[in-house]
């Protein structure tokens, strides 16, 4: 029965549209993780907790204070930028100075510690209750067989806008160029007078801001609660690996692909098996192409 349904063009289109929505969500979640990984080499396992804090900021600004949702999303991004800068300066920079050569594995473990602290502080401060903000945008878009709420279309639109903004920032701004230079050769960047410590701080701040922004924007689907970051961080890591570690555009394309594949596979399997499939997909990619689906070392990595 499922197979015959899949041959129906109307259903195909609807599933594709759902997949793209899902992919946009993943792309938003993964962008910050990919940026931090690509530039600093740090795998930030507390990325999901930054997402979680973003969701809480959104809840307080929009749900409690009643301000319009774009302000909530903006506030989430700004707060997380500041928080990211703080974390980088106090913790990650300290580790980089102390741990020496193989500090990246240690940085990963450090972010695990951060995850535990943030998650449980959230539990203490806010309890386990789920705090959502219902329906940021009302209405539903209908086009033939495709039915999508405006809210989800808005998510896609914001994802595209954020992706473009990030891309042009990295590509064309002075800071973006310095960020790329630092990721390609920190030693050389330093001799040119680039303060690489500051570049790392900004990078972490921007990555955190992206996590916060997605946490805020996706609040109607992922209501704020202390462990809300678990799912986003796993999906983000999957996208980052599939796209090629540190390859931001690769991660975004991988997010879209993963979204579509998952939407289709939800026809065949229960939600639980999808998680297995995602994990197996990642494992297979790590075996056959550890550098990711789209990576060749010559490709521009930003």
């Amino acid at each position, binding site marked *: 029965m499922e197979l015959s349904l899949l041959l129906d063009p109307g259903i195909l289109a609807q599933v594709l549209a759902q997949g793209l929505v899902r992919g946009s969500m993943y792309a938003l979640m993964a962008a910050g993780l990919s940026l931090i990984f690509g530039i600093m080499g740090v795998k930030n396992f507390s990325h999901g907790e930054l997402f979680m804090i973003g969701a809480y900021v959104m809840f307080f600004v929009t749900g409690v204070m009643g301000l319009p949702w774009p302000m909530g999303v903006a506030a989430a991004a700004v707060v997380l930028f500041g928080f990211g800068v703080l974390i980088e300066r106090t913790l990650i920079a300290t580790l980089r100075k102390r741990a020496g050569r193989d500090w990246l594995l240690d940085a990963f473990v450090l972010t695990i510690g951060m995850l535990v602290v943030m998650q449980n502080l959230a539990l203490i401060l806010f309890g386990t209750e789920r705090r959502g903000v219902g329906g940021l945008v009302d209405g539903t878009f209908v086009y033939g067989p495709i039915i999508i709420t405006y809210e989800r279309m808005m998510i896609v639109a914001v994802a595209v806008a954020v992706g473009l903004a990030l891309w042009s920032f990295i590509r064309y701004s002075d800071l973006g160029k310095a960020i*790329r230079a630092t990721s390609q050769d920190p*030693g*050389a960047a330093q001799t040119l*007078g*680039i*303060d690489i410590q500051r570049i790392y701080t900004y990078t972490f701040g921007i990555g955190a801001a992206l996590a916060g922004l997605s946490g805020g924007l996706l609040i109607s689907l992922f209501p704020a609660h202390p462990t809300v970051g678990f799912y986003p961080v796993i999906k983000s890591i999957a996208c980052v690996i599939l796209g090629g570690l540190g390859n931001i555009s690769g991660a975004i394309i991988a997010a879209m692909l993963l979204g579509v594949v998952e939407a289709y596979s939800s026809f065949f399997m229960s939600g639980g098996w999808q998680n297995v499939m995602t994990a197996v997909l990642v494992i297979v990619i790590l075996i056959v192409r550890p550098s990711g689906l789209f990576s060749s070392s010559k490709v521009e990595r930003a």
Partner: protein
Amino acid sequence: MSLEVSDVVAGYTREVPILNGLDLTAEDGRVTVIIGPNGAGKSTLLKTIYGYLKPERGTIKHDGQSIVGYSPKDMLRKGIAYLIQGHSIFPRMTVEENLELGGWIMGSDSERREALERIYERYPRLKEKRRLSAGILSGGEQRILEIARLTMTGPRTLLLDEPSVGLMPKLVNEVYEEISRLKDEKYTILIVDQNVKKSISIADYVYALALGENRHEGTKEEFAERLDEIVKEWI
């Protein structure tokens, strides 16, 4: 803009200094070459001059003024630029972006634009390839790009660490031609290179280091005679 290093003691750890009371002067507008066996502290000296290592003792003066404790940014502002050992281009950025980053510390875009035009005039080949990824340039072109990038901010003193390492002989010549062009333009140049013959050929003054001290020094002519004997000492 002479560079004077006197009685400098420095190293990676306090217990094991690499430089043991080193004295050296790079005269204004001259090429000064430092030679020595592996581990003599040649690269360490350049790193110390550029502020990457803090000297335990001694003074480093540029144009009569102490530059100890300067950041790379301060160094560039004072007109000192440093080519580190090994590849230092940004391979996945364009030639032009590489050059722009050479002018990172410059305050205004117009200033940087001017510097870029100046570089393109001087290196037409880089202008032709300005939109290409630096990583696909040939080894020699990459070195030229590095040197060109070094001059974006209009420095007068250049510290070059192994400018010809890893290059084929033909390209070594190209790089040294470029360095002698800079010499003709009266840059103050301090070179460390494994390629002793080549570097001495353009030198005005030569220092031979061993174990972090200067063992021999003299003009190129004085050195040419004693070179074999000095190199033998290293082995």
